[in-house]
Protein backbone atom coordinates (compact mmCIF):
# COMPACT_ATOMS: atom_id res chain seq x y z
CA UNK A 1 0.00 0.00 0.00
CA UNK A 2 2.88 2.32 0.76
CA UNK A 3 4.19 2.12 -2.78
CA UNK A 4 0.68 2.77 -4.14
CA UNK A 5 0.51 5.98 -2.12
CA UNK A 6 3.91 7.03 -3.36
CA UNK A 7 2.72 6.48 -6.90
CA UNK A 8 -0.34 8.58 -6.32
CA UNK A 9 1.83 11.46 -5.20
CA UNK A 10 4.12 11.33 -8.21
CA UNK A 11 1.40 10.54 -10.77
CA UNK A 12 -0.93 13.43 -11.46
CA UNK A 13 -4.64 12.67 -11.26
CA UNK A 14 -6.10 11.23 -14.44
CA UNK A 15 -9.77 10.81 -15.28
CA UNK A 16 -10.57 7.76 -17.38
CA UNK A 17 -13.29 8.28 -19.96
CA UNK A 18 -14.34 5.61 -22.44
CA UNK A 19 -16.75 5.73 -25.34
CA UNK A 20 -18.70 2.53 -25.84
CA UNK A 21 -21.00 3.53 -28.68
CA UNK A 22 -20.01 5.36 -31.85
CA UNK A 23 -23.52 5.48 -33.30
CA UNK A 24 -26.90 3.85 -32.77
CA UNK A 25 -26.27 0.41 -34.20
CA UNK A 26 -22.72 0.03 -32.88
CA UNK A 27 -21.76 -3.09 -30.89
CA UNK A 28 -24.22 -3.79 -28.07
CA UNK A 29 -21.50 -5.60 -26.10
CA UNK A 30 -18.74 -2.95 -26.36
CA UNK A 31 -20.02 -0.79 -23.46
CA UNK A 32 -20.57 -3.88 -21.30
CA UNK A 33 -16.99 -4.96 -21.93
CA UNK A 34 -15.65 -1.47 -21.15
CA UNK A 35 -17.34 -1.63 -17.75
CA UNK A 36 -16.14 -5.18 -17.04
CA UNK A 37 -12.67 -5.38 -18.58
CA UNK A 38 -10.75 -2.53 -16.97
CA UNK A 39 -10.76 0.61 -14.85
CA UNK A 40 -13.08 3.46 -15.79
CA UNK A 41 -14.51 6.67 -14.32
CA UNK A 42 -16.92 7.68 -17.08
CA UNK A 43 -18.66 5.79 -19.87
CA UNK A 44 -19.96 7.89 -22.76
CA UNK A 45 -22.44 6.66 -25.36
CA UNK A 46 -23.24 8.41 -28.62
CA UNK A 47 -26.53 7.32 -30.18
CA UNK A 48 -27.47 10.26 -32.38
CA UNK A 49 -26.84 11.02 -36.02
CA UNK A 50 -28.79 13.56 -38.07
CA UNK A 51 -30.98 10.89 -39.63
CA UNK A 52 -31.61 9.38 -36.18
CA UNK A 53 -33.21 12.60 -34.92
CA UNK A 54 -35.86 12.56 -37.64
CA UNK A 55 -36.60 8.86 -37.18
CA UNK A 56 -37.05 9.45 -33.45
CA UNK A 57 -39.29 12.46 -34.10
CA UNK A 58 -41.54 10.26 -36.28
CA UNK A 59 -41.66 7.56 -33.57
CA UNK A 60 -42.65 10.17 -31.01
CA UNK A 61 -45.48 11.43 -33.25
CA UNK A 62 -46.92 7.91 -33.37
CA UNK A 63 -46.34 7.20 -29.66
CA UNK A 64 -45.61 10.00 -27.13
CA UNK A 65 -43.70 7.51 -24.96
CA UNK A 66 -41.08 6.89 -27.68
CA UNK A 67 -38.49 8.98 -29.49
CA UNK A 68 -35.36 8.00 -27.55
CA UNK A 69 -32.62 5.35 -27.90
CA UNK A 70 -34.25 2.21 -26.50
CA UNK A 71 -30.94 0.33 -26.80
CA UNK A 72 -29.61 2.55 -24.04
CA UNK A 73 -32.23 1.45 -21.52
CA UNK A 74 -31.56 -2.22 -22.33
CA UNK A 75 -27.84 -1.56 -21.88
CA UNK A 76 -28.30 0.07 -18.47
CA UNK A 77 -30.36 -2.94 -17.43
CA UNK A 78 -27.28 -5.10 -18.17
CA UNK A 79 -24.62 -2.91 -16.54
CA UNK A 80 -26.33 -1.03 -13.71
CA UNK A 81 -25.06 -3.33 -10.90
CA UNK A 82 -21.47 -2.97 -12.13
CA UNK A 83 -21.83 0.79 -12.59
CA UNK A 84 -22.96 1.08 -8.95
CA UNK A 85 -20.26 -1.23 -7.56
CA UNK A 86 -17.45 0.41 -9.50
CA UNK A 87 -18.71 3.98 -9.27
CA UNK A 88 -18.74 4.53 -13.01
CA UNK A 89 -20.80 7.45 -14.28
CA UNK A 90 -22.56 7.49 -17.64
CA UNK A 91 -23.09 10.34 -20.12
CA UNK A 92 -25.32 9.56 -23.11
CA UNK A 93 -27.25 11.51 -25.72
CA UNK A 94 -29.81 8.68 -25.59
CA UNK A 95 -32.65 11.09 -24.84
CA UNK A 96 -33.09 11.76 -28.54
CA UNK A 97 -36.18 13.94 -28.98
CA UNK A 98 -37.82 12.67 -25.79
CA UNK A 99 -35.39 12.78 -22.83
CA UNK A 100 -38.21 12.70 -20.26
CA UNK A 101 -39.59 9.42 -21.67
CA UNK A 102 -36.05 8.04 -21.68
CA UNK A 103 -35.66 9.04 -18.03
CA UNK A 104 -38.97 7.40 -17.15
CA UNK A 105 -37.87 4.12 -18.78
CA UNK A 106 -34.55 4.40 -16.97
CA UNK A 107 -36.24 4.98 -13.61
CA UNK A 108 -38.28 1.81 -14.11
CA UNK A 109 -35.12 -0.20 -14.81
CA UNK A 110 -33.40 1.36 -11.78
CA UNK A 111 -36.36 0.47 -9.56
CA UNK A 112 -36.28 -3.14 -10.77
CA UNK A 113 -32.63 -3.19 -9.70
CA UNK A 114 -33.58 -1.48 -6.41
CA UNK A 115 -31.00 1.17 -7.18
CA UNK A 116 -32.15 3.54 -4.46
CA UNK A 117 -30.27 6.82 -4.42
CA UNK A 118 -29.21 6.58 -8.07
CA UNK A 119 -29.25 10.11 -9.47
CA UNK A 120 -30.43 10.61 -13.02
CA UNK A 121 -29.73 13.91 -14.76
CA UNK A 122 -31.68 15.12 -17.76
CA UNK A 123 -30.62 17.93 -20.07
CA UNK A 124 -33.23 19.48 -22.38
CA UNK A 125 -33.66 22.58 -24.49
CA UNK A 126 -32.04 21.41 -27.73
CA UNK A 127 -35.31 20.37 -29.38
CA UNK A 128 -36.80 23.48 -31.01
CA UNK A 129 -39.32 21.83 -33.37
CA UNK A 130 -42.24 23.25 -31.39
CA UNK A 131 -40.55 26.67 -31.08
CA UNK A 132 -39.77 27.20 -34.78
CA UNK A 133 -42.70 29.49 -35.54
CA UNK A 134 -42.10 31.59 -32.44
CA UNK A 135 -38.38 31.88 -33.23
CA UNK A 136 -39.00 32.79 -36.87
CA UNK A 137 -41.60 35.38 -35.84
CA UNK A 138 -39.06 36.94 -33.50
CA UNK A 139 -36.50 37.33 -36.26
CA UNK A 140 -34.40 34.15 -36.41
CA UNK A 141 -33.88 33.58 -40.13
CA UNK A 142 -32.77 29.90 -40.19
CA UNK A 143 -31.23 30.54 -43.62
CA UNK A 144 -29.51 27.47 -45.06
CA UNK A 145 -25.81 27.74 -44.08
CA UNK A 146 -24.66 26.07 -47.31
CA UNK A 147 -26.66 27.85 -49.98
CA UNK A 148 -28.44 30.76 -48.24
CA UNK A 149 -31.98 29.63 -49.10
CA UNK A 150 -34.78 30.95 -46.85
CA UNK A 151 -36.45 28.51 -44.43
CA UNK A 152 -39.83 29.20 -46.05
CA UNK A 153 -38.70 26.88 -48.89
CA UNK A 154 -39.20 23.84 -46.63
CA UNK A 155 -41.18 25.15 -43.64
CA UNK A 156 -44.26 22.99 -44.32
CA UNK A 157 -42.18 19.78 -44.56
CA UNK A 158 -39.96 19.98 -41.47
CA UNK A 159 -39.63 16.74 -39.48
CA UNK A 160 -37.12 17.65 -36.77
CA UNK A 161 -35.14 20.66 -35.57
CA UNK A 162 -32.40 20.40 -32.96
CA UNK A 163 -29.69 22.68 -31.64
CA UNK A 164 -26.21 21.36 -30.91
CA UNK A 165 -26.02 22.66 -27.35
CA UNK A 166 -22.82 23.28 -25.41
CA UNK A 167 -21.21 20.98 -22.84
CA UNK A 168 -21.78 23.05 -19.71
CA UNK A 169 -25.36 21.83 -19.16
CA UNK A 170 -24.27 18.17 -18.91
CA UNK A 171 -21.37 19.28 -16.74
CA UNK A 172 -23.85 20.99 -14.40
CA UNK A 173 -25.87 17.78 -14.08
CA UNK A 174 -22.69 15.88 -13.17
CA UNK A 175 -21.60 18.58 -10.73
CA UNK A 176 -25.00 18.23 -9.04
CA UNK A 177 -24.24 14.57 -8.42
CA UNK A 178 -25.89 12.81 -11.36
CA UNK A 179 -24.67 9.23 -11.87
CA UNK A 180 -26.28 8.96 -15.29
CA UNK A 181 -26.92 11.96 -17.55
CA UNK A 182 -29.18 11.74 -20.57
CA UNK A 183 -29.37 14.52 -23.11
CA UNK A 184 -30.75 15.18 -26.54
CA UNK A 185 -28.68 16.75 -29.30
CA UNK A 186 -25.30 17.64 -27.88
CA UNK A 187 -22.12 17.50 -29.94
CA UNK A 188 -20.47 14.10 -29.99
CA UNK A 189 -17.15 15.37 -28.53
CA UNK A 190 -19.14 17.21 -25.84
CA UNK A 191 -19.99 13.88 -24.19
CA UNK A 192 -16.30 13.63 -23.23
CA UNK A 193 -15.72 17.33 -22.60
CA UNK A 194 -18.58 17.69 -20.10
CA UNK A 195 -17.22 15.31 -17.42
CA UNK A 196 -13.86 17.11 -17.66
CA UNK A 197 -15.58 20.45 -17.08
CA UNK A 198 -17.37 18.95 -14.08
CA UNK A 199 -14.29 17.25 -12.59
CA UNK A 200 -11.64 19.89 -13.25
CA UNK A 201 -13.79 23.00 -13.12
CA UNK A 202 -12.67 24.20 -16.54
CA UNK A 203 -14.19 27.62 -17.24
CA UNK A 204 -16.09 28.96 -20.23
CA UNK A 205 -13.12 31.08 -21.38
CA UNK A 206 -10.38 28.46 -20.96
CA UNK A 207 -10.43 27.85 -24.69
CA UNK A 208 -7.38 25.62 -24.98
CA UNK A 209 -8.58 23.31 -22.20
CA UNK A 210 -12.03 23.11 -23.76
CA UNK A 211 -10.30 22.42 -27.10
CA UNK A 212 -8.28 19.59 -25.52
CA UNK A 213 -11.43 17.96 -24.16
CA UNK A 214 -13.07 18.39 -27.55
CA UNK A 215 -10.16 16.72 -29.34
CA UNK A 216 -10.33 13.82 -26.88
CA UNK A 217 -14.03 13.51 -27.64
CA UNK A 218 -13.37 13.66 -31.39
CA UNK A 219 -10.81 10.85 -31.15
CA UNK A 220 -13.24 8.46 -29.40
CA UNK A 221 -16.58 9.57 -30.86
CA UNK A 222 -16.60 6.77 -33.44
CA UNK A 223 -15.74 4.07 -30.92
CA UNK A 224 -13.22 1.57 -32.27
CA UNK A 225 -12.19 3.80 -35.19
CA UNK A 226 -9.19 4.95 -33.12
CA UNK A 227 -8.28 1.50 -31.75
CA UNK A 228 -7.70 -0.34 -35.01
CA UNK A 229 -11.11 -0.16 -36.67
CA UNK A 230 -10.98 1.20 -40.22
CA UNK A 231 -7.16 1.42 -40.01
CA UNK A 232 -5.41 1.53 -43.42
CA UNK A 233 -2.82 -1.12 -42.42
CA UNK A 234 -5.53 -3.47 -41.21
CA UNK A 235 -3.27 -6.51 -41.32
CA UNK A 236 -1.33 -5.11 -38.34
CA UNK A 237 -4.46 -5.23 -36.16
CA UNK A 238 -4.87 -8.32 -33.97
CA UNK A 239 -7.88 -9.65 -32.14
CA UNK A 240 -10.73 -8.32 -34.28
CA UNK A 241 -13.15 -10.58 -32.38
CA UNK A 242 -12.35 -8.84 -29.08
CA UNK A 243 -11.48 -5.37 -30.37
CA UNK A 244 -10.96 -2.94 -27.51
CA UNK A 245 -12.94 0.31 -27.44
CA UNK A 246 -11.09 3.52 -26.59
CA UNK A 247 -10.24 4.78 -23.12
CA UNK A 248 -8.89 8.30 -22.51
CA UNK A 249 -6.78 9.16 -19.47
CA UNK A 250 -7.18 12.90 -19.01
CA UNK A 251 -5.01 15.21 -16.90
CA UNK A 252 -6.18 18.55 -15.54
CA UNK A 253 -3.83 20.49 -17.87
CA UNK A 254 -5.59 19.05 -20.91
CA UNK A 255 -2.96 16.47 -21.85
CA UNK A 256 -4.30 12.99 -22.36
CA UNK A 257 -3.48 9.42 -23.30
CA UNK A 258 -5.51 7.42 -25.82
CA UNK A 259 -5.47 3.75 -24.89
CA UNK A 260 -7.66 0.66 -24.47
CA UNK A 261 -8.04 -1.91 -21.74
CA UNK A 262 -5.30 -4.54 -21.28
CA UNK A 263 -6.00 -7.86 -22.93
CA UNK A 264 -8.37 -6.49 -25.56
CA UNK A 265 -7.73 -6.71 -29.31
CA UNK A 266 -6.96 -3.85 -31.62
CA UNK A 267 -4.17 -1.31 -31.94
CA UNK A 268 -3.60 2.18 -30.57
CA UNK A 269 -0.72 3.91 -32.35
CA UNK A 270 0.17 7.38 -33.60
CA UNK A 271 -1.08 6.18 -36.98
CA UNK A 272 -4.49 4.91 -35.81
CA UNK A 273 -5.06 8.09 -33.78
CA UNK A 274 -3.89 10.35 -36.65
CA UNK A 275 -6.39 8.75 -38.99
CA UNK A 276 -9.26 9.33 -36.57
CA UNK A 277 -8.20 12.94 -35.96
CA UNK A 278 -8.76 13.55 -39.68
CA UNK A 279 -12.12 11.77 -39.79
CA UNK A 280 -14.89 14.06 -41.04
CA UNK A 281 -12.46 16.99 -40.87
CA UNK A 282 -13.13 20.29 -42.64
CA UNK A 283 -10.77 23.22 -42.14
CA UNK A 284 -8.37 21.88 -39.49
CA UNK A 285 -7.52 25.35 -38.20
CA UNK A 286 -11.14 26.13 -37.35
CA UNK A 287 -13.04 23.13 -36.01
CA UNK A 288 -16.16 24.80 -34.65
CA UNK A 289 -18.09 23.54 -31.65
CA UNK A 290 -20.54 25.32 -29.35
CA UNK A 291 -17.79 25.33 -26.68
CA UNK A 292 -14.73 26.62 -28.57
CA UNK A 293 -12.85 26.73 -31.86
CA UNK A 294 -10.14 24.05 -32.10
CA UNK A 295 -6.92 24.34 -34.10
CA UNK A 296 -6.12 20.76 -35.16
CA UNK A 297 -2.75 21.89 -36.56
CA UNK A 298 -1.61 22.37 -32.93
CA UNK A 299 -2.03 18.72 -31.89
CA UNK A 300 1.12 16.78 -30.99
CA UNK A 301 1.08 12.97 -30.87
CA UNK A 302 3.69 10.61 -29.37
CA UNK A 303 3.74 6.87 -28.71
CA UNK A 304 3.87 6.36 -24.93
CA UNK A 305 4.25 2.57 -24.67
CA UNK A 306 2.27 -0.23 -26.25
CA UNK A 307 -1.26 0.82 -27.23
CA UNK A 308 -0.78 4.23 -25.61
CA UNK A 309 -0.62 7.56 -27.49
CA UNK A 310 0.06 10.86 -25.73
CA UNK A 311 -1.81 13.90 -27.05
CA UNK A 312 -0.65 17.41 -26.14
CA UNK A 313 -0.11 20.98 -27.30
CA UNK A 314 -3.73 21.63 -28.22
CA UNK A 315 -4.73 25.24 -28.80
CA UNK A 316 -8.26 26.56 -28.88
CA UNK A 317 -9.93 29.88 -29.52
CA UNK A 318 -13.06 31.72 -28.47
CA UNK A 319 -16.39 30.09 -29.31
CA UNK A 320 -18.67 31.79 -31.82
CA UNK A 321 -21.88 33.54 -30.76
CA UNK A 322 -24.14 31.02 -32.47
CA UNK A 323 -25.27 27.43 -32.07
CA UNK A 324 -25.58 25.13 -35.07
CA UNK A 325 -29.13 23.96 -35.80
CA UNK A 326 -29.85 20.74 -37.62
CA UNK A 327 -33.22 20.72 -39.35
CA UNK A 328 -34.56 17.73 -41.29
CA UNK A 329 -37.32 17.98 -43.87
CA UNK A 330 -39.14 15.56 -46.14
CA UNK A 331 -37.49 15.75 -49.56
CA UNK A 332 -39.21 12.90 -51.42
CA UNK A 333 -39.02 9.13 -51.74
CA UNK A 334 -36.53 6.57 -52.90
CA UNK A 335 -36.16 2.85 -53.54
CA UNK A 336 -33.22 0.65 -54.47
CA UNK A 337 -33.04 -2.99 -55.50
CA UNK A 338 -30.57 -5.49 -56.85
CA UNK A 339 -30.07 -8.57 -58.99
CA UNK A 340 -27.06 -10.88 -59.09
CA UNK A 341 -25.69 -11.52 -62.57
CA UNK A 342 -23.40 -14.54 -63.03
CA UNK A 343 -20.89 -15.07 -65.84
CA UNK A 344 -19.83 -15.68 -68.47
CA UNK A 345 -20.04 -12.07 -69.62
CA UNK A 346 -21.44 -10.93 -66.26
CA UNK A 347 -20.75 -7.24 -66.86
CA UNK A 348 -22.17 -7.20 -70.39
CA UNK A 349 -25.33 -9.01 -69.25
CA UNK A 350 -25.78 -6.68 -66.28
CA UNK A 351 -25.62 -3.71 -68.63
CA UNK A 352 -28.28 -5.30 -70.87
CA UNK A 353 -30.48 -5.76 -67.78
CA UNK A 354 -30.04 -2.15 -66.74
CA UNK A 355 -30.85 -0.82 -70.22
CA UNK A 356 -33.92 -3.07 -70.37
CA UNK A 357 -35.15 -1.90 -66.96
CA UNK A 358 -34.84 1.79 -67.67
CA UNK A 359 -36.21 1.34 -71.21
CA UNK A 360 -39.28 -0.53 -69.98
CA UNK A 361 -40.02 2.11 -67.35
CA UNK A 362 -39.68 4.90 -69.91
CA UNK A 363 -42.03 3.13 -72.36
CA UNK A 364 -44.54 2.82 -69.51
CA UNK A 365 -44.25 6.57 -68.98
CA UNK A 366 -42.07 6.70 -65.88
CA UNK A 367 -39.03 8.94 -65.58
CA UNK A 368 -37.44 10.09 -62.33
CA UNK A 369 -35.72 13.07 -60.70
CA UNK A 370 -32.71 10.89 -60.02
CA UNK A 371 -31.66 7.33 -60.89
CA UNK A 372 -28.60 5.21 -60.21
CA UNK A 373 -27.11 2.16 -61.91
CA UNK A 374 -24.19 0.49 -60.15
CA UNK A 375 -22.31 -2.71 -60.86
CA UNK A 376 -21.27 -3.89 -57.40
CA UNK A 377 -18.07 -5.85 -57.85
CA UNK A 378 -16.86 -3.54 -60.60
CA UNK A 379 -17.23 0.17 -59.92
CA UNK A 380 -19.76 0.99 -57.19
CA UNK A 381 -17.28 2.40 -54.67
CA UNK A 382 -14.20 3.67 -56.49
CA UNK A 383 -15.64 4.41 -59.93
CA UNK A 384 -13.35 3.81 -62.88
CA UNK A 385 -9.91 3.55 -61.30
CA UNK A 386 -7.31 3.67 -64.10
CA UNK A 387 -6.01 0.29 -65.22
CA UNK A 388 -7.38 -2.73 -67.03
CA UNK A 389 -10.87 -3.79 -65.89
CA UNK A 390 -10.75 -6.84 -63.61
CA UNK A 391 -12.07 -10.14 -64.92
CA UNK A 392 -15.12 -10.57 -62.68
CA UNK A 393 -17.03 -13.85 -62.46
CA UNK A 394 -20.23 -12.20 -61.28
CA UNK A 395 -21.57 -8.76 -60.48
CA UNK A 396 -24.51 -7.36 -58.56
CA UNK A 397 -26.62 -4.95 -60.56
CA UNK A 398 -27.88 -2.31 -58.14
CA UNK A 399 -30.45 0.21 -59.35
CA UNK A 400 -32.39 2.94 -57.60
CA UNK A 401 -34.63 5.96 -58.08
CA UNK A 402 -35.57 9.10 -56.15
CA UNK A 403 -38.63 11.23 -56.81
CA UNK A 404 -41.20 13.43 -55.11
CA UNK A 405 -44.00 11.12 -56.29
CA UNK A 406 -44.29 8.07 -54.07
CA UNK A 407 -46.42 6.10 -56.55
CA UNK A 408 -43.77 6.45 -59.26
CA UNK A 409 -41.10 5.17 -56.88
CA UNK A 410 -43.24 2.14 -55.99
CA UNK A 411 -43.79 1.46 -59.71
CA UNK A 412 -40.01 1.22 -60.20
CA UNK A 413 -39.94 -1.55 -57.60
CA UNK A 414 -42.20 -3.72 -59.78
CA UNK A 415 -39.81 -3.69 -62.75
CA UNK A 416 -36.91 -5.61 -61.18
CA UNK A 417 -38.21 -9.20 -60.72
CA UNK A 418 -39.37 -9.65 -64.34
CA UNK A 419 -35.73 -9.44 -65.46
CA UNK A 420 -35.00 -12.84 -63.92
CA UNK A 421 -37.17 -14.48 -66.61
CA UNK A 422 -37.18 -11.81 -69.31
CA UNK A 423 -33.49 -10.87 -69.39
CA UNK A 424 -30.22 -12.59 -70.28
CA UNK A 425 -29.47 -16.00 -68.67
CA UNK A 426 -27.90 -16.68 -65.27
CA UNK A 427 -29.61 -13.94 -63.27
CA UNK A 428 -30.69 -14.53 -59.70
CA UNK A 429 -30.66 -13.06 -56.24
CA UNK A 430 -34.08 -11.41 -56.30
CA UNK A 431 -35.36 -11.94 -52.79
CA UNK A 432 -37.21 -10.09 -50.11
CA UNK A 433 -40.05 -8.80 -52.28
CA UNK A 434 -40.40 -5.68 -54.39
CA UNK A 435 -38.39 -2.65 -53.30
CA UNK A 436 -40.74 -0.18 -51.60
CA UNK A 437 -40.56 3.59 -51.47
CA UNK A 438 -38.99 5.02 -48.31
CA UNK A 439 -38.85 8.64 -47.24
CA UNK A 440 -35.86 10.77 -48.17
CA UNK A 441 -34.92 13.35 -45.56
CA UNK A 442 -33.06 16.47 -46.53
CA UNK A 443 -30.84 18.37 -44.09
CA UNK A 444 -31.01 22.06 -43.49
CA UNK A 445 -27.99 23.25 -41.52
CA UNK A 446 -28.47 26.66 -39.94
CA UNK A 447 -27.37 28.92 -37.08
CA UNK A 448 -29.14 30.54 -34.13
CA UNK A 449 -27.87 33.18 -31.69
CA UNK A 450 -26.90 31.50 -28.43
CA UNK A 451 -29.10 33.75 -26.31
CA UNK A 452 -32.23 32.34 -27.94
CA UNK A 453 -31.63 28.87 -26.48
CA UNK A 454 -32.24 28.00 -22.84
CA UNK A 455 -31.12 24.62 -21.57
CA UNK A 456 -32.70 22.96 -18.55
CA UNK A 457 -30.89 20.64 -16.17
CA UNK A 458 -32.83 18.33 -13.92
CA UNK A 459 -31.35 15.85 -11.43
CA UNK A 460 -33.65 13.35 -9.70
CA UNK A 461 -32.97 10.59 -7.23
CA UNK A 462 -34.44 7.11 -7.66
CA UNK A 463 -36.57 6.23 -4.61
Amino acid at each position, binding site marked *: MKSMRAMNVSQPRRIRIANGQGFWGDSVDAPVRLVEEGPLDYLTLDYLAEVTMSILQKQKRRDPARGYATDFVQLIDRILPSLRTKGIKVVANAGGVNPSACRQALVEVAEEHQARGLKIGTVTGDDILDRLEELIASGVGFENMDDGRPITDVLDRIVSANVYIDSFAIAEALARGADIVISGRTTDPGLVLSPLIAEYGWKQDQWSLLAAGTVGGHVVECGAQCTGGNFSRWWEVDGWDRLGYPVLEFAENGEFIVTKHDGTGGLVSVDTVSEQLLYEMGNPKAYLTPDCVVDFTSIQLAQDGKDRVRVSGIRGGEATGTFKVSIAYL*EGYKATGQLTVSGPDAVAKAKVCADALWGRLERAGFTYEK*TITELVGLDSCHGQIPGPPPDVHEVVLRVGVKDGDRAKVDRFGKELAPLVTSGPPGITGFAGGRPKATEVLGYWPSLIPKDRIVTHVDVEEVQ
Partner: protein
Amino acid sequence: MKTLPLYALAHARSGDKGDGSNVGVIAYDQTSFAILREFLTPLKVKEHFSGIVFGEVRRFELPNLMALNFLLGESLGGSGSASLKTDAQGKTHGMAMLRMEIEVPDDYEPPEAGTAGSMAPDGELGGA
Protein backbone atom coordinates in the same frame (compact mmCIF):
# COMPACT_ATOMS: atom_id res chain seq x y z
CA MET B 1 11.20 9.75 -61.99
CA LYS B 2 9.27 6.59 -61.18
CA THR B 3 5.73 6.00 -59.93
CA LEU B 4 4.50 4.30 -56.80
CA PRO B 5 1.00 3.83 -55.45
CA LEU B 6 0.10 6.36 -52.75
CA TYR B 7 -0.26 3.55 -50.20
CA ALA B 8 3.52 3.11 -50.28
CA LEU B 9 3.94 6.68 -49.00
CA ALA B 10 0.89 7.30 -46.82
CA HIS B 11 -2.24 6.04 -45.12
CA ALA B 12 -5.71 7.58 -45.21
CA ARG B 13 -9.20 7.86 -43.77
CA SER B 14 -12.40 9.27 -45.23
CA GLY B 15 -15.92 10.16 -44.17
CA ASP B 16 -18.87 12.35 -45.12
CA LYS B 17 -18.95 16.12 -44.90
CA GLY B 18 -22.30 17.58 -46.01
CA ASP B 19 -22.92 16.64 -49.63
CA GLY B 20 -19.24 15.81 -50.05
CA SER B 21 -16.59 13.74 -48.35
CA ASN B 22 -13.21 14.36 -46.80
CA VAL B 23 -10.06 12.31 -47.21
CA GLY B 24 -7.20 12.72 -44.77
CA VAL B 25 -3.87 11.56 -46.22
CA ILE B 26 -1.08 10.98 -43.68
CA ALA B 27 2.50 10.57 -44.90
CA TYR B 28 4.77 8.02 -43.22
CA ASP B 29 7.78 10.36 -42.99
CA GLN B 30 8.90 13.91 -43.78
CA THR B 31 10.41 12.96 -47.16
CA SER B 32 7.15 11.43 -48.28
CA PHE B 33 5.18 14.38 -46.88
CA ALA B 34 7.33 16.80 -48.92
CA ILE B 35 6.67 14.77 -52.10
CA LEU B 36 2.92 14.65 -51.45
CA ARG B 37 2.73 18.36 -50.64
CA GLU B 38 4.18 19.00 -54.09
CA PHE B 39 2.39 16.31 -56.08
CA LEU B 40 -1.06 15.92 -54.53
CA THR B 41 -2.72 19.04 -55.88
CA PRO B 42 -6.51 19.48 -55.74
CA LEU B 43 -6.51 19.21 -59.55
CA LYS B 44 -4.78 15.80 -59.55
CA VAL B 45 -7.12 14.54 -56.83
CA LYS B 46 -10.15 15.69 -58.79
CA GLU B 47 -8.86 13.87 -61.88
CA HIS B 48 -8.29 10.69 -59.88
CA PHE B 49 -11.88 10.81 -58.62
CA SER B 50 -13.42 11.52 -62.02
CA GLY B 51 -16.95 10.14 -62.09
CA ILE B 52 -17.17 10.46 -58.30
CA VAL B 53 -16.30 14.06 -57.44
CA PHE B 54 -18.42 16.66 -59.26
CA GLY B 55 -17.66 19.68 -57.09
CA GLU B 56 -14.61 21.61 -55.96
CA VAL B 57 -11.64 19.89 -54.31
CA ARG B 58 -10.08 21.88 -51.45
CA ARG B 59 -6.84 21.06 -49.65
CA PHE B 60 -5.69 21.86 -46.10
CA GLU B 61 -2.29 21.13 -44.55
CA LEU B 62 -1.56 19.68 -41.10
CA PRO B 63 2.27 19.63 -40.92
CA ASN B 64 2.06 18.51 -37.26
CA LEU B 65 0.58 15.18 -38.43
CA MET B 66 2.43 15.13 -41.80
CA ALA B 67 -1.06 15.18 -43.25
CA LEU B 68 -3.12 16.73 -46.03
CA ASN B 69 -6.89 17.00 -45.71
CA PHE B 70 -8.96 17.05 -48.90
CA LEU B 71 -12.58 18.10 -49.14
CA LEU B 72 -14.21 16.43 -52.14
CA GLY B 73 -17.27 18.48 -53.13
CA GLU B 74 -20.44 16.81 -54.43
CA SER B 75 -19.01 13.31 -54.13
CA LEU B 76 -21.89 11.47 -52.48
CA GLY B 77 -24.75 11.84 -54.94
CA GLY B 78 -26.75 13.99 -52.54
CA SER B 79 -26.52 14.63 -48.83
CA GLY B 80 -28.23 12.96 -45.91
CA SER B 81 -30.49 10.12 -46.95
CA ALA B 82 -30.97 11.56 -50.47
CA SER B 83 -28.07 9.60 -51.97
CA LEU B 84 -28.78 6.41 -53.91
CA LYS B 85 -25.15 5.30 -53.92
CA THR B 86 -23.76 2.20 -52.19
CA ASP B 87 -21.13 4.40 -50.56
CA ALA B 88 -23.40 7.27 -49.57
CA GLN B 89 -20.98 8.42 -46.85
CA GLY B 90 -17.65 8.34 -48.69
CA LYS B 91 -16.37 5.61 -46.38
CA THR B 92 -14.35 4.07 -49.23
CA HIS B 93 -12.86 7.28 -50.64
CA GLY B 94 -9.74 6.94 -48.47
CA MET B 95 -8.94 3.54 -49.96
CA ALA B 96 -9.69 4.90 -53.45
CA MET B 97 -7.23 7.75 -52.83
CA LEU B 98 -4.48 5.29 -51.78
CA ARG B 99 -4.69 3.62 -55.22
CA MET B 100 -3.47 6.82 -56.90
CA GLU B 101 -0.12 6.61 -58.73
CA ILE B 102 2.43 9.13 -57.39
CA GLU B 103 5.54 10.37 -59.19
CA VAL B 104 8.60 10.06 -56.95
CA PRO B 105 12.35 10.63 -57.53
CA ASP B 106 14.27 7.56 -58.74
CA ASP B 107 16.27 7.38 -55.51
CA TYR B 108 13.17 7.52 -53.29
CA GLU B 109 12.76 4.47 -51.07
CA PRO B 110 9.34 4.06 -49.47
CA PRO B 111 9.35 4.02 -45.65
CA GLU B 112 9.09 0.70 -43.87
CA ALA B 113 5.41 1.14 -43.03
CA GLY B 114 4.66 1.46 -46.74
CA THR B 115 6.50 -1.72 -47.72
CA ALA B 116 6.16 -4.03 -44.72
CA GLY B 117 2.95 -5.43 -46.09
CA SER B 118 1.62 -3.19 -48.75
CA MET B 119 -1.60 -3.77 -50.62
CA ALA B 120 -0.98 -5.24 -54.05
CA PRO B 121 -2.98 -3.64 -56.88
CA ASP B 122 -5.32 -6.63 -56.91
CA GLY B 123 -6.19 -5.99 -53.26
CA GLU B 124 -4.28 -9.00 -51.92
CA LEU B 125 -1.57 -8.80 -49.32
CA GLY B 126 1.90 -8.48 -50.75
CA GLY B 127 5.37 -8.03 -49.30
CA ALA B 128 6.63 -9.66 -46.14
